């Protein structure tokens, strides 16, 4: 087992050398620390999910443009796509998309309200309030989307 070289005098070096959450692995989060939110506060989890949903939505933006390009190829191509897009699997992915939009959007409002100083120091209350709003909206959207099948 390899031992990390320690400089005497710095506090908590033995703890940091142990395996475990990012919290113990160095002074402050690494540049890519948001990938591993274990052992961190609720806000870091929200930040990580916000980024994951954001990257997913960027991917979806280009996927959406690619799908809409089928319209250029004419009616028959679009109708073929509609047959696939109205299956349960694709409608389920629509609900996943709705989750991504709701989480990213509502968390974005929370971050903007706190970051601009409009509602300072109310991160957690806003998080839970938006979680309730988001869950209810997602449930309504899911029933509407899946119920149309």
């Amino acid at each position, binding site marked *: 087992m390899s031992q990390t070289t320690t400089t005497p005098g710095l*506090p*908590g*070096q*033995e*703890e*940091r050398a142990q395996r475990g959450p990012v*919290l*113990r692995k160095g*002074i*402050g*989060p690494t*540049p*890519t620390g*948001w990938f591993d939110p274990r052992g961190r506060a609720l806000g870091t989890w929200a930040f990580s999910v916000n*980024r994951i949903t*954001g*990257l997913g*939505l*960027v991917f979806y*933006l*280009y996927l959406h*443009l690619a799908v*809409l*390009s089928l*319209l*250029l190829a*004419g*009616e028959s191509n*679009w*109708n073929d796509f*509609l047959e696939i*897009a*109205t299956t349960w699997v*694709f*409608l389920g992915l*629509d609900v996943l998309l709705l989750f991504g*939009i709701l989480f990213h*959007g509502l968390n*974005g*409002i929370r971050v*903007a309200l706190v*970051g*601009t*100083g409009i509602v*300072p120091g109310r991160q957690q209350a806003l998080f839970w309030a938006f979680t309730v709003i988001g869950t209810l909206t997602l449930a309504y959207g899911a029933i*509407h*989307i899946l119920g*149309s*099948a």
Partner: protein
Amino acid sequence: MATVAPTRPRPAKRRPVPAGTSVRAWWWTVITGAALLVLLLVHMVAHHFVVEEVGGLRSYQQVLEYIGNPLIFTIECFFLVTVTTHALMGLRSVLLDMGFGARARRRIDAGLWVLGFATVAYGFFLVGTLASRA
């Protein structure tokens, strides 16, 4: 047992005065995000909650009629620019968090500008072509 030093600085009582490119980028992300809340709501409702088809998806003719409306055309164009700007600024902040050097950061910025212009140009072409068929 030694105490583990806190990994985050404690929040300052005074808010630091924002300045610099990153802060401007953050503000643009907030502004485009706020605009997206309205535009995306209109887009989602118009596409998934108005049409009485499975999944709210429009048929080919319905899409042409929809995009042929000048008001909808304008809203969709504005939506395209806003969503592309917001998406690529978010992507930029993720990439810059990877800790690249100054040269790589300039390349990332240039690449994202090119990608953004290409995306908007293609989107305009797509929407314009469909509107002309209406």
